[in-house]
């Protein structure tokens, strides 16, 4: 029941908000906060009740939905999705809190959309039925596009339209692919299809493309990434947190959940391309980030690079790479979410994100400066923090399979240090820029948010096995699939 509750709670919250009079802004806020808090609390038993080292799905629910067509409401989670759900409930709460004073007009619609977004994203992560999945996948687009389009920056409509058209165009083929699977397998139930369906290699190659295209746009994988910086620059702070934090993960998660187990025989064909694009993304994203003059754009391009690591781990790293990829999805959500949040704190006061408007801020806002530095360290992948573990095991796993790819990826961490420390130097260090003389340091709400985010980063950095123990049973099966097909391909 927990999984269904997690979808229903935010929807209920959104409906309740709809009935609150427009002027009652505080009621709207507290209702939104209450809903996300309840959702977070309800999601915690998923972690504590999760059985370690067990294969298969947990917290499964199965209800016939359209019985004549064999389409069911089938949800369940395993190590791949568990932490993404927790990340979603956590980051939605953070998003609502971070919008506390930033959003002044249309608060009602804004909060309602935020909650609907949460419901849709959780739906994506729990669906075990292709059509259910597709429904949530597309449903998640709408609130996000509206959040950008109404509460965004000056080119918000362009960014929103680009976002929705781009991702929809990407996922059209996926629907076709899902239909082909349905026609061939007679069901849209994922576990059944994975276990029973025997497709020819050529068909698998084609269907893999149809699915992977949708996922790769979402990730986004180079060269399908240009919607992302536009969307981030225009999106409100909370929109960016949700976009980078959880929406991009829908892409990388779905590779692992759908593309690999459904089309194992296509991997030998597509993996080299995906690995190459991931490596290009790591280096290219970093280089482009280096010369941005808008800090949000810099973080957006850093996402292209970071997501590249996740794709690399997924397709070339064996089990270490895949577990690392799952962990890195969480890590990227936390560290990039935190960076976007912190940029939002500045933006709320200064209404600019240009490096040239900042400089020497650490003197003026020491608490902010410290959190910013810690977020940067997490993003750069420093040990003790979360990013290190993920990147290390991804590259370690990749090295065993493909040393050249690992070497190029490892070089990406030099570039990451270069652009992120450059950003830190331009904003936080150097002579103080007097334009910021009225800047206020973080208040209790803001430092509370930052503390919660960075505390999780430290916990993961020190005790990654808290996650790996639950992730590994899912990745070991995927790794077996890949190993088996690699053997077949080798023969």
């Amino acid at each position: 029941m927990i999984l269904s509750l997690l979808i229903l709670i935010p929807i209920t919250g959104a409906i309740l908000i709809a009935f609150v009079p427009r002027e009652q802004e505080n009621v709207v806020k507290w209702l939104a906060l209450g809903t996300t808090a309840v959702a977070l609390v309800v999601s915690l038993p998923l972690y504590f009740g999760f059985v370690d080292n067990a294969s298969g799905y947990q917290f499964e629910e199965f209800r016939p939905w359209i019985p004549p067509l064999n389409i069911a409401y089938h949800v369940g989670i395993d190590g791949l999705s568990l932490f993404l759900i927790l990340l979603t409930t956590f980051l939605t709460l953070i998003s609502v809190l971070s919008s506390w004073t930033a959003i002044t007009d249309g608060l009602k619609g804004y909060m309602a959309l935020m909650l609907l977004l949460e419901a849709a994203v959780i739906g994506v992560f729990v669906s075990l039925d292709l059509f259910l999945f597709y429904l949530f996948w597309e449903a998640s687009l709408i609130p996000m596009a509206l959040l950008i389009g109404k509460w965004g920056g000056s080119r918000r409509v362009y960014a929103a339209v680009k976002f929705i058209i781009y991702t929809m165009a990407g996922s059209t083929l996926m629907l076709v692919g899902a239909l082909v699977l349905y026609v061939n397998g007679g069901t849209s139930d994922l576990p059944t299809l994975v276990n029973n369906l025997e497709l020819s290699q050529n068909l698998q190659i084609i269907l893999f493309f149809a699915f992977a295209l949708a996922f790769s746009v979402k990730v986004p994988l180079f060269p399908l990434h240009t919607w992302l910086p536009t969307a981030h620059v225009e999106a409100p702070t909370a929109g960016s947190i949700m976009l980078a934090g959880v929406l991009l993960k829908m892409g990388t998660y779905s590779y692992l959940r759908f593309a690999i187990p459904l089309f194992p025989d296509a991997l030998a064909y597509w993996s080299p391309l995906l690995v190459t694009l991931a490596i290009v993304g790591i280096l290219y994203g970093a280089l482009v980030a280096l010369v941005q003059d808008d800090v949000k754009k810099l973080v957006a391009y850093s996402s292209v690079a970071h997501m590249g690591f996740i794709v690399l781990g997924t397709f070339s790293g064996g089990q270490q790479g895949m577990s690392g990829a799952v962990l890195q999805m969480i890590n990227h959500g936390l560290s990039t979410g935190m960076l976007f949040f912190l940029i939002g704190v500045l933006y709320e006061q200064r209404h600019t994100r240009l490096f040239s408007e900042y400089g020497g801020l650490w003197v003026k806002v020491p608490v902010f400066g410290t959190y910013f530095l810690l977020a940067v360290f997490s993003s750069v992948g420093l040990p003790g923090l979360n990013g290190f573990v993920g990147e290390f095991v991804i590259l370690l796993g990749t090295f065993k399979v493909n040393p050249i790819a690992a070497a190029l990826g490892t070089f990406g961490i030099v570039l990451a240090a270069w652009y992120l420390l450059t950003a830190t130097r331009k904003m936080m260090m150097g002579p103080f820029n007097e334009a910021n003389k009225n800047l206020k340091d973080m208040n209790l709400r803001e430092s509370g948010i930052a503390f919660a985010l960075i505390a999780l980063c430290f916990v993961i950095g020190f005790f990654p096995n808290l996650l790996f123990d639950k992730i590994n049973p899912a990745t070991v099966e995927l790794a077996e699939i890949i190993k088996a097909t690699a053997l077949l391909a080798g023969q």
Partner: protein
Amino acid sequence: MTQLIWLTIALPILGLLINGLFGRRFLGNRVVSIIAPLMVLLAFLVGVGAFFETMGRDGEAVTVHLWNWTTIGDFSVPINLLVDPLSLTMVLVVTGVGFLIHVYATDYMVHRDDHGHAHDDRDFPRFFTFLNLFIASMLVLVLGDNYLMMYVGWELVGVSSYLLIGYWFDRPSEEQTPIDLGPDTEPVQLQPLLSPAASGMKAFIVNRIGDVGFALGVFLIWSTFGTLQFDEVFAEAVHVSETMPTVIPWITALLFVGAIGKSAQLPLYVWLPDAMAGPTPVSALIHAATMVTAGVYMIVRSNILYSLAPNVSLWIAIIGMATAFFAATIALVQVDLKRVLAYSTVSQLGYMFAAVGVGAYTAGMFHLVTHAFFKALLFLGAGSVMHALHDVIDIRRMGGLKDKMKITWITFWIGGLALAGFPLMSGFFSKDEILAHVFEASPILWFFGILTAGMTAFYTFRAIFIAFHGKPRDHHLYEHAHENRAPITFALSVLAVLAIFGGLLGLPAFMGFTHYLDGWLEHVLYELPHGAEEHHMSVTMEYILMGTSAVIAVGGIALAYFFYMVQPSIPQNIARSLRSLFALLAHKYWIDELYDTLFVQPGLKLSNAFANGLDKLIIDETFIDGSAKLVGRFGKLLSKLENGYTSNYALATFIGVLIMISYFFLR
């Protein structure tokens, strides 16, 4: 105490948490300056306890298991601490010297006006937070029992270094006064000094370049041995080198790339001189005594791997000696006291690599330890001078300071003698041991080593004579100069004693003494089963080499005395007649400019081309928006439905989906 060795890491972490979270707002600078050194002192005491226990166990290693860190399939790394003679040697140096430097910094970091009133410095707790962080990081590096923990520590000391170099992050870059070469000669212009923020960043990035090599080395170890635990890797090493002869050379070479970065060897040494932008205690602790020696520690720890890769080792010796020589030439003409010492550090690290490269692991460790004493002493002495002169560090503005700062002067002399390798000082024994081993391996390398030794003695005493002797050059500064307070003179005095007597750890065996360090480190040095037969040189040869070292050291000092005390016109005349060579050295061979032209600028150009050309114009505007426009135009022809409302696009998609679904059902 051995089982409690984790306290050595936990205590500084506790200190940094207390000072970092509460120092600024609640504790005040006085409490902060008690907590930070106290934590390091307690860590030192735990280390001493573990040391005696390990002595009692006859050097046998003990592993302390803390928790399982990362487990994925057949990859598993625990957080274990390894207590053995090698790690304890490092622990004692790091916490011992670290404690003295913490004490020193409690006064050094306080800025006073001319009446001795301390400024209320709000950043003070931040400094000690970072300094404690460094101690904890360095201890992770040396105490880890596997390569991943070593890598973790390796990265963490880099962060601490970044934070501490950039401690005065709001200071701008500084112009340097040109070097005057006398009347009617154009002075030699000097490059401006990088700002602390830029220096810290440079250090971090150059180090990360090295770390790529280190990380790949670690990956290769895992994919070869299936483990990263030291004991398991070393146990399999001989077997692996027989079955896969190319792997171990690769591993050792890759790990050494990391050492080149961390320990500032050619060609990645460029960050270390700029690291002098950080506060002087940082230069002493991180950039002289401890962090920069991590590469040497790593090689001694992995000694069996390096012994199994003789060609790589030979290259390490060559790179080490080349660095020693190269850096010493630059140090000859530097006018910034800290930079003289910085290049000297690069040079002395070169000696250590020459030692471990020729397989003289104990000699390398010996020099690591004595160097930690005397170079920390010299840096702290330079800091003492700076503190007295209100941050002036240019030796051209000093002179005659010996009368004003007796303790600093005497202890700086002691440090200088030890660095120069003056007979019976600690540096004499350790350097001589290295040179003897290098001579055995290659007389050519030895020749460069002895040449470097001569330059070392010369440049060290050049600085001493200019700064402390002769007449004051800047009377205002001189008048205000004064000896520093007790925390500073205390640290100087203790380190001076260590710099004199540190040599007792490894008195030459050929003279009939006991080489304590040899016996102590024996347990961590592996013997190859069919190792080359050890052929010792004759005792006569040992005496000849030692005599040469002594003569060279004294000669270098005497030459500096003659140049700067007796005939001060000589060095200027030489510089004038060899102007281009002098300028080349003063500009550090233009290496920074070379790297900028070769790597940084092209990198930025490529970035710009990608960002503005490929990404914006080609991928986004041409392909993505272009195809959207194409579809848009096509759509306009078809209908006038398109009005920019998202709902209409959604409707269109919905209809499209319906059409596709019907196609599948009806076909």
